[in-house]
């Protein structure tokens, strides 16, 4: 009790320093949660994808579920020789994976990872609860494009540069409709704050604006660079695309950020369209406190599972078809959806 008392006293006396400390601690927690989560996503993808393909997947390291496979991979990546091509633009080459990590951490900072149900109220778990967090998250997500371009362009490799150009062309074509979809949601929710967007969803926005939901899902897959939109690293065409020249832990970082993004993207999708952590409270002590967390977790797992399902069953589109789809179909349709959101939103307001 003394400890809590002294902390409260400190918070009252030095609010600025206290906020800083909370921020730093929160950042550390977020970094740990996101990265551990991404590891689980990688493991899950390998397991689920191999199930789709009628194979076993990792089943040696760490028992029959291969749960320690990622640890073994990480050790391998950390101990591998760090190769930087002689002709590479060294500064940019070295910084690209770091920029990618920063980009995902920026996203993670503003995303609510759920809520705790305390005293009949949902207390959201979010490090930076800002007024425009939906907008901010959308902007921070597109920073990844810069990291991809840095990696591809600085490698001085033909495959990499093609991958980088493909990545940029794709991201630009899909960031715009994605942004318009976020705005449509914000219009209906009368807020750009992700917490308020979740709280305003008495009816899931996936049902209130199905068109926007569809466009957002497609744009999200594109943003994550997954099949059928993985042109920037289509291995059968351009080896590995933008990260061809990377090896060891630098490659590991780039690879990891894709799964970080997949995790964060799935959470964002659940928050914006699938009602976030909302759901019936489980009437069991202790479980009722974390029941919003459980609901969000289940939704995220289902979204991720669907992403893997898509990968197992769809062909890759050609880059010109991707940009074609983005500019000629997704953008006009997303604007149509915005009109719908404005109409319905103002009617129910």
């Amino acid at each position, binding site marked *: 009790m003394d400890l809590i008392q002294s902390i409260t006293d400190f918070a009252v006396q030095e609010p600025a320093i206290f906020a800083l400390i909370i921020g730093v601690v929160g950042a550390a927690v977020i970094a740990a949660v996101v990265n551990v989560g991404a590891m689980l996503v990688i493991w899950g993808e390998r397991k689920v994808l191999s199930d789709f393909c009628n194979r076993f997947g990792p089943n040696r390291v760490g028992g029959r579920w291969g749960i320690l496979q990622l640890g073994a991979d990480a050790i391998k990546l950390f101990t591998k020789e760090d190769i930087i091509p002689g002709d590479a633009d060294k500064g940019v080459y070295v910084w690209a994976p770091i920029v990618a990590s920063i980009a995902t951490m920026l996203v993670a900072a503003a995303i609510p990872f759920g809520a705790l149900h305390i005293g009949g109220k949902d207390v959201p778990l979010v490090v930076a609860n800002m007024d425009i967090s939906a907008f901010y998250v959308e902007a921070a997500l597109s920073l990844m494009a810069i990291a991809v371009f840095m990696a591809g362009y600085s490698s001085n490799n033909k495959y990499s540069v093609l991958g980088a150009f493909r990545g940029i062309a794709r991201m630009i074509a899909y960031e715009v409709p994605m942004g318009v979809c976020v705005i449509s949601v914000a219009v209906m929710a009368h807020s750009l704050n992700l917490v308020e967007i979740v709280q305003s969803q008495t009816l899931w926005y996936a049902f209130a604006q199905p068109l926007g939901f569809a466009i957002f899902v497609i744009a999200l897959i594109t943003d994550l660079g997954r099949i059928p939109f993985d042109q920037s690293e289509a291995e059968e*065409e351009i*080896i590995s695309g933008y990260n061809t020249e990377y090896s060891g832990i630098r490659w590991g970082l780039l690879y990891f950020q894709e799964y970080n993004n997949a995790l964060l993207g799935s959470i964002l999708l659940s928050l914006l369209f699938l009602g976030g952590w909302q759901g019936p409270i489980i009437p069991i002590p202790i479980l009722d406190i974390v029941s919003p967390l459980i609901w969000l977790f289940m939704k995220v797992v289902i979204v991720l599972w669907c992403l893997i399902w898509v990968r197992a069953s769809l062909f*890759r589109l050609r880059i010109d*078809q991707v940009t074609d789809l983005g500019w000629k179909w997704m953008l006009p349709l997303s604007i149509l959806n915005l009109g719908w959101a404005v109409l319905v939103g103002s009617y129910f307001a």
Partner: protein
Amino acid sequence: MTNANDVLSSIQSAFPGAVLDSKVESERRLWATIDSKKILDVCKHLTSKLNFDHYSGAAGVDWIARKEMEVVEIMASHGAHQVVAMLKVKTSRENPSVKSLTGLYWNANWYEREIWEMLGINFEGHPELYPLLLSDELVGVWPWRKDYKGYPDLTTGERAVQITTPEGYTEYHIPPTPAEVEAGTVVVERPKYPSFREREEREIKSDAEMIMHLGPQHAMVPGPFLLDVLVEGERVRKAFLDVGYIHKGIEKIMENRTWLQGITYTDRMCYVASLSNNECYCGAVEKILGLEVPLRAQYIRVILEELSRIQSHLIGTGEFLTLIAGVGYAPWQYMIIDREQIISLIESVTGARLTHTFVRFGGVRNDLPEGFADKCRKVLPYMKSRTEEFIELFEQDPIYHKRMDGVGIIRPDDAKRMGVSGPPLRATGVAYDMRKEDPILVYPELDFKVTTGTKGDSADRIDVRLREMLESIHIIEQCLDKIPEGPIKTDVKVPKKVPVGEAYYRVEDPRGEMGMYVISDGGDKPYRVKVRGPFYATFQTLTPLLEGVYIADAVAIAGSMDGCPSEADR
């Protein structure tokens, strides 16, 4: 229907004196020695008057005892008749040179280049006589001549320079260093020609273009070959093909092995189609020997070759799917898992999964094991339902159609002109199948259709392969019903030394028309074995086909050909 006699008399009446020597082996085989001055006219006559629109290949033979070289042009027709004309052109051994047919037949290019680099026969009028399979420094040693002693020529030490390395190893150095040139150790001068790299760099017209390698080690290639694309942004402006990365010299090796040992080498040409390679070689030798294959053995051969066709198409289609969908695409794994059942069936008979060495002269190695028919009857209906599922899957997939429809279209006329064979040819609508055109074994007694496509694009090529699997299943089911009891080997003792003679034998490989030209000089080894591989024929069409497409499509087109560079290079 035109037969070999009609063809011969037509040539003789049109060009009196042009045919120096001739032999009508059967209704479908004509052997003729043509005056080297008249070969172009004779070929033109054959193509325009007698429907010989299929230039099937060429073989070079070094007759060292007769002090002459021979080029054998193999001509056939796409369905108008079934005659194969083997036109021989003789030339002196000192300064061998014949007229090039590249002006008449587009696909003569590679066949003549190969003969030139291997035997040193010059082709007058050939536009690009550069080495194809061999590396640049090997040109001028003419490895397939009968007096070739190995490389470097250690018997005389003429070209090789012996150098002791600091570690104490002995190395033979070719090409020579400038110091070796100064010392005069290098005697033979090599012909001058631009290297592959120079040839492609000549084509770069602006800074916006670059050459991108798809191979020899690349996720796209089914085996090592170099496909260089000159790209401007995402568009391929021109494609360059360099093969020979897996050249094993199998034709030359077979000249140095006994007749029986040769069978094992045919396995290694393409291990997913080793049974039809076995069949092709053994069939040719049986033809020279005049052996009759017992009926039961014929049925066993047909069953196994069709099983082998199914598994080859499964892996070919599966690999193609990974090229346009990534390795995470589930149906590709399903195909590999299904293929395993077929492989097990073949394994239960031959004892090997890939390199079977099962066919023998005048029969097969062993009989079908007990219960094989029951096992087959269990697997085949499953296979059939799976194949139908795959066909339906691709028919209904909108992204697949968006990616593949109209990609890499070959028109029927072009396909004939360029000598495409197998499913890529049939996808254009040309019903050309060796099992119908040049029937062997018991194929004439079996009921099956030749699968054809309509558009000739990549989607069609895959569709034709999948529907061909259904036909193969149908063939095997018939064979299982019809197969008689009896011996599996001929009663005649197969002699160690094969009598003097020559034969050209064609089978329908999973990839198309596979032909083998076998010559015996009466010894215990073949005098010459020429393999006319199906993918070698389809391979060279990639270059014109890839012009102007997107990189992603270039990969898909190359994949839809179901390539096997190992068999093309031999």
